[in-house]
């Protein structure tokens, strides 16, 4: 039974959860990806393995944390180890199926920027940088980008490629010696994939109560638009309940 009452955040979390298959290994940061992963694990993917880059596997938090550095999100983990173990012996080893990535801005090839806005060799504002994002973008079998749907975030060109998507399209990513690549971009208005040849972003569905015009008007580049454009599957009542009552009761991630 689909929910009537849900927020854009909840829809995005559910869409993220649907990208995860049972038995897979997912590398996540904090926020929406955590909600998506925990949701998947409590529903269709009980054997999902969830990794935090700093050395945490499959925690079962009962309080919401402010970030990866918050011991709240490490609670009841099955493994507590290290970057070398998680990002080296799992990710770089080639075992991570899915990585979730967010950022300041992305371009039509899924290149992500979390480092700076402006001119890298001149005036710029510096933000967070990579953390494990570049590593995940380079070595995960596939990545899912989650980003707010705004023209300043869906850009023709990003100021700085922190985490490579398909670089300049075509086979430029493979030529750089990288694995995988982004398969999905989830925003609060739509879901995108990538054209298998050109690697240009392609609309896959638009969310309920949104129009194609609204989607396109809030992007700085023009995505491929298929003839038949489905509406994104909404969250179920149970999914919304799990998010609100069990996974993010304090609405800290939803913020």
């Amino acid at each position, binding site marked *: 039974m689909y929910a009537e009452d849900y927020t854009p955040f909840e829809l995005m979390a559910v869409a993220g959860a649907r990208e995860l298959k049972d038995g897979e290994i997912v590398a996540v940061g904090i926020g929406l990806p955590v909600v998506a992963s925990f949701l998947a694990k409590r529903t269709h993917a009980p054997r999902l393995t969830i990794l935090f880059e700093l050395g*945490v596997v499959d925690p079962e938090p009962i309080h919401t944390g402010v*970030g990866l550095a*918050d*011991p709240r999100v490490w609670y009841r983990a099955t493994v*507590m180890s*290290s970057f070398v173990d998680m990002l080296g012996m799992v990710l770089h080893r080639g075992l991570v199926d899915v990585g979730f990535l967010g950022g300041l801005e992305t371009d039509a090839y899924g290149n992500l920027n979390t480092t700076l806005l402006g001119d890298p060799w001149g005036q710029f504002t510096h933000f967070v940088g*990579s953390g*494990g994002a570049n590593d995940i973008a380079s070595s995960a079998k596939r990545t899912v980008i989650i980003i707010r749907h705004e023209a300043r975030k869906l850009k023709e060109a990003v100021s700085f490629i922190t985490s490579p998507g398909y670089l300049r399209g075509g086979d430029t990513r493979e030529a750089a010696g*990288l694995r995988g690549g982004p398969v999905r971009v989830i925003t609060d208005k739509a879901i995108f994939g990538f054209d298998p040849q050109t690697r240009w972003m392609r609309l896959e569905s638009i969310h309920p109560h949104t129009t194609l015009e609204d989607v396109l008007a809030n992007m700085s580049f023009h995505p491929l638009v298929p003839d038949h454009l489905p509406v994104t599957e909404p969250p179920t009542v149970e999914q919304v309940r799990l998010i609100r009552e069990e996974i993010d009761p304090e609405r800290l991630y939803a913020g």
Partner: protein
Amino acid sequence: MGKLATLAEAVESIPPGAHVALSGFAITRCNMAFAREVIRQGLRGLTISQCVGGMDADLLVGAGVVKRMIYGGGSLDRFGRLNNVNRGIESGTLIAEEYSSLSVAFRYLAGALGLPFIPIRSLRGSDILTRLQQMAPENVGVVQDPFTGEQWLALRPLVPDVAVVQVQVADEEGNAWIYGPRWDNEEQVKASQRVIVITEQLVPTEIIRRDPERTVIPGFKVSHVVHLPFSAHPTSVYRVYDYDAEHIREYAAATRTTEGFQTYLEKYVFSVQDHWEYLELIGGMKHLASLMADPILGY
């Protein structure tokens, strides 16, 4: 003779310009008391490194202690960005060698293992690499896989002069345990020429010998052991105390401007003689008691 030292003595052992690896991650197990003492002693020209930059790094950078920072990005988690670090990068007063988490971890690992270099898949195709090739070309190279002929990016080992590591448990020889995830700390320690251990709890070696599988820092690497409770405040130490959200919020707000940060520095670093006065200033035992970790939850 022994390794037990005051924080001041440990800091005095670090010469200006040294490369210091820091054990913090964002807002947990950061070398805060250490950073405050470094600033009070007026140490200058440091290179600092860590996989993910934290509050200790931001404090040191803001106070002008740091010449170069080798890191993989960083923040105060939801509390905000590393405003001092960012301002330093934007204004050019800080030389930032910026990587990803794994590439810094691999550089430490190569240093720890005595490898001449380490190949990595990360960074390729990114502007992180473009920037490094211009700012630190001596640390990134290209190597050919002798088995497949493929070209790989190679990173130079990172060998800090000293690793300063905030731990939960150590003995007088510096044998130390870390509870919770260890992020880059083991490789940092083993890459470094020597280690300063700052511990919440000092235990007899007898205790270490009862559970030697836990020993992440071996005593033979350690030059100084500083027993200093609450030395990571306002950041957290898993199983010992939680982060001080109120204080970190105050810090994040203060660091939005240079002036705000100067006021913070004056109040929390320069107006006190040492760590004990600092603990009184922030509210003493009454306040600290409110941060003590629950033994089951660990926070």
